[in-house]
Every structure is written in C-alpha cells, then in structure tokens.
C-alpha cells in the first residue's frame, strides 16, 4: 500500500488531502505514479495537467520523477514551495 498526500492547489484539485492506494501494476517511479493518477480520473487529470508545476516527496524527502516508489512509501505531491 502507498500513502499519498496532496498539498495546496494539488490538494484542492484532487479534492482530498490523502489516500491509501495499492501500488498499481507497472508503477515503479514517481513519474509512473503521476501518469497513473493522471489517467485515473478527471481530478487527477486536472491536478497533474501541468507537470512542470508539480513537485513530489518520497518518505518526506524531495523526490525526482525517476525516484523509485515501492510498497509502504509515503508519496506527497504539491506545487513549487512558497515559504520563507
């Protein structure tokens, strides 16, 4: 099982702040997961419509598109950060 978290504008577009997801077949990286979520439903398509404005973290560390994901991971998606 994956734990997925969404923050800020991505949370609003997904219509939820988190979900548990059985690791889908063929998903091995963050990029794969984005593709899977994009195809899953309209909310996913809207949330990930502009991949250049999506950032991710795996197990609370910033992740790249090629970062592997595996069962038990916490993967978060969010827009570029704007703190400070």
């Amino acid at each position, binding site marked *: 099982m994956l734990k997925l978290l969404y*923050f*800020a504008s991505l949370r609003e577009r997904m219509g939820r702040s988190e979900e548990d997801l059985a690791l889908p077949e063929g998903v091995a990286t963050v990029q794969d997961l984005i593709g899977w979520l994009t195809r899953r439903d309209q909310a996913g398509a809207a949330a990930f419509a502009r991949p250049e404005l999506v950032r991710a973290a795996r197990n609370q560390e910033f992740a790249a598109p090629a970062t592997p994901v595996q069962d038990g991971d916490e993967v978060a998606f969010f827009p570029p*950060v*704007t*703190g400070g």
Partner: protein
Amino acid sequence: MATVRVQRDPFDTGAELARLIAGRTDIGGIGAFVGVVRGAELAALTLEHYPAMTERALAAIAAEAEARWQLLGCTVIHRYGRLAPGEPIVLVLAASAHREPALAATAFLIDWLKTKAPFWKQEEAQNGTRNWVEARQEDDVAAARWGN
C-alpha cells in the same frame, strides 16, 4: 545544533537572540532576518505545510548553514496558519565569530527556506477571494547562487 521550530504562534525575536548568546563569549555577531506578511490589500495570508516533513527540511537547511560557515549558533522558526498583514512569518538567526559568515549564512538560510522548505502561501483578499501564491523564478535564482 540548530534550534528549529514550526509553530502557529508568534515568536519573540528578542528572547531568541538572548537565548542564542546566553553564556557565550565566543560569538562576535548574529545575523538576523525576520520575514513579515506584506500587503495592505490582503485580509490574511495562510501558510500550509507538510507537518511530517517540515521540521526535518528546516533542520537539514540549518545544518547545511552551520557546516558551510562553522556557525556558533543558528535558529530557524517558521510559522504556519492564518496570519494578518504585518505579522512576522519566519525568523532566521545565524551566530558566528565575525560578521561576514553571520550575514552570509543568514542570506543563505532565507534563500534556501524559500525554495527547499515545504510551505505554501495562500493570499486572502479583502473581498474573501483566495489565491495560491506562485513560486517566483527570482527565488530559484537566489537559491541557486549558493550551489547545491
């Protein structure tokens, strides 16, 4: 070891400064930066964050500053929640034997905070409309000058 806190409540800059130099005679200067909510047209600014990750990210940024400039003390406090214009958002303190490393580390800390800490700002206008603040390319440029 840096002091790192993520909190809803305001911070006391004077108290944090005093804590950093209490009992020390090796510190020659402290660089300080206080970020403040700007904009009379705003009703509020709300900061969302990633609780499980935020403190760890701030600690990593502070540790990087401590290592690069051999700081004698470092404090990073970042607020979240709904803040009014004029309220402080973030406090950065960097203590060193001399002013150059203290001031350079302070600039580094705030540049990296803006691009490497999981916070998101949402502006709330006087008429109630809400708008997520977009990341600024200038911030990426400012952060990039310090390398990775």
